[in-house]
């Protein structure tokens, strides 16, 4: 179960790369085992939570755009899904770029070095953080859909949105 979220993120590993994935799994360059914090779980749980908040708001909060008789069109649901996805995109990007800029990613995952310790190549780029954000957008979408299927039936005004 601990690896469930990580495995889901790894569906998109080709986007953000193996080395960033290793960092997120909690790989420790010094001990060469996965004894660090599993960031997939941390980011994943927050992503699930944020999706849940948006879904609950959409189906139950009596405000325009949310549980409102004029917001029960599929495109309104899609707008909320995108907003939740964008929030989660920046969550994932922010988390990883923070690690990237603050040197929290293990050196063995960041660079390939020669025998003298010179950097031969960089393994993780800023771009990978953006792409991990995009992956989290997709994960967010999956959970948003799942929460919608579960929670929509109790909604007064939006129970048949999106379908």
């Amino acid at each position, binding site marked *: 179960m601990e690896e469930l979220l990580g495995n889901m993120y790894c569906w998109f590993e080709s986007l953000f790369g193996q080395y960033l994935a290793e960092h997120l799994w909690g790989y420790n360059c010094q001990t060469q085992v996965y004894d660090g914090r599993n960031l997939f779980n941390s980011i994943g749980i927050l992503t699930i939570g944020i999706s849940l908040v948006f879904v609950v708001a959409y189906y139950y909060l*009596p405000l325009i755009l949310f549980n409102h*008789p004029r917001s*029960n069109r599929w495109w309104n649901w899609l707008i909320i899904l995108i907003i939740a996805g964008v929030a989660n995109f920046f969550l994932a990007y922010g988390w990883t770029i923070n690690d990237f800029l603050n040197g929290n990613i293990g050196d063995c995952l960041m660079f390939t070095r020669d025998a003298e310790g010179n950097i031969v190549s960089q393994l993780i780029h800023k771009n990978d953080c953006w792409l991990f954000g995009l992956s989290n957008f997709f994960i967010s979408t999956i959970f948003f859909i799942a929460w919608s299927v579960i929670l929509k039936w109790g909604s007064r005004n939006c129970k048949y949105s999106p379908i």
Partner: protein
Amino acid sequence: MSKLYIFGIGGTGARVLKSLTMLLAAGVDCGADTIVPIIIDRDMSNKDLSRTKLLIEDYIDVNEIAATKGKNKFFKTKIELLNNELCLQLKDNTQKFDDFIGKSTMSRENQALVEMLFSEETLNLDMTAGFQGNPNIGSVVLNQFDNNDIFKAFATDFNEGDKIFIISSIFGGTGASGFPLLRKLLQTPNVKGADGQDLPNWGLVNDALAGAISVLPYFVVGSASDNSLVNSDTFIDKSRAALSYYKTEDKKLDTLYYIADKRATTYEHHKGGDEQKNHAHFVELASALAVLDFVNPEKKNINFHRNNERKIEYTTYKEFGINTDATEINFNDLADETKKLLINPLSRFMLFRNYMDKVFEKESKYQPYARKRFNNDFRKKETIKKLEAVHAYFFNWLREMENQNRKFSPFNLTSSSAFDFIKGNVNTGKSETFSYRNWAKVDDELNAQIGKTDKALKNEERFIELFYCTTEKLINYKN
């Protein structure tokens, strides 16, 4: 299961019945379970009558789908027709009055007597358009009520506890002459039908609680463009003459209502037929309220005074009044009792009509209350089409009352708002909230109420029940 048999005589009778049907459609409380309307008119082609007939036929169809198990009051009171006919068709179709009385076959002396009693114009009158304000010929021609299948059906259908009410005008021809004749016939013992047999249950009819409204002048007609004998200059004199005769009706009816309006509207002059289409008037609505007052169980001790032998001890006389002599009446101008009776039902029905007219088509695709129930072809169902036809009649009825000299204008008919359509300072409760405004509030309430309606109801029944419960929640006037 008490029934109220209502005889509507002449054009006014038909128009008051129309107003009564509108009130019942809106769900105004009625003390009778079933209303049986019978229209008596010689002029079967007059537009007032045909409009009332169409409305009542549609009402009957909608009543079939009006849920009676739940809270619904729209179309709740049953309207039943005798032999499936609204009109008591007089069998004699003689067109001219002198042919009707057989003047040509009379002796010379009798012909001379007839010429003394009736003018040449009257004798040559074409009665297919009614009696054109001539009660003297009406009282002769209408003396054939009992010789009629509907009358037999009426007697056969009559049960212990049923009541009778007669609506007529006093200033025209048909109503003024028909009312005393009909009253007398209903209280004559052992009346025989066309087949020569005693009419069944006639004893019950004789003893039944009976009321009537006599409508005094409330409109005038312009000058005649044809050979019509209708002349509104004579309305007051005719009323006076009739009233002096009606004195003899004391203790023959349990309750007698009078109504009039000095601020008369001038109608176009039509002697009758297809062109006689008078706009609805507040007086007709108030007259319809008299019918409801008569059957109101709370008024039993005021309306009926019978001794142990079921004889009338005295007749209760009633009139209708408004708080101020306003040219434009809205709910504020009505007395508290009338407000209590009318504001909620009329406003709720108006909200229902407005929603169907302005919002339903667009929103039924999206709103949960309509999903898989009231969308797609739901609106094409016959009963729903008829419901919407009654909505249209209701709206026109209000619009017509607004176009009179004495306007009854309780609603802003051009308003596109869900809640601001009620005129005057009428507090119907706060419906809108910060989150849900205007029609969104109505949809929100429909979506909330659908789960509270009985799932066992048929789809169309559930639809009316849903709209009643929703409008009841949104509009709740308390005195």
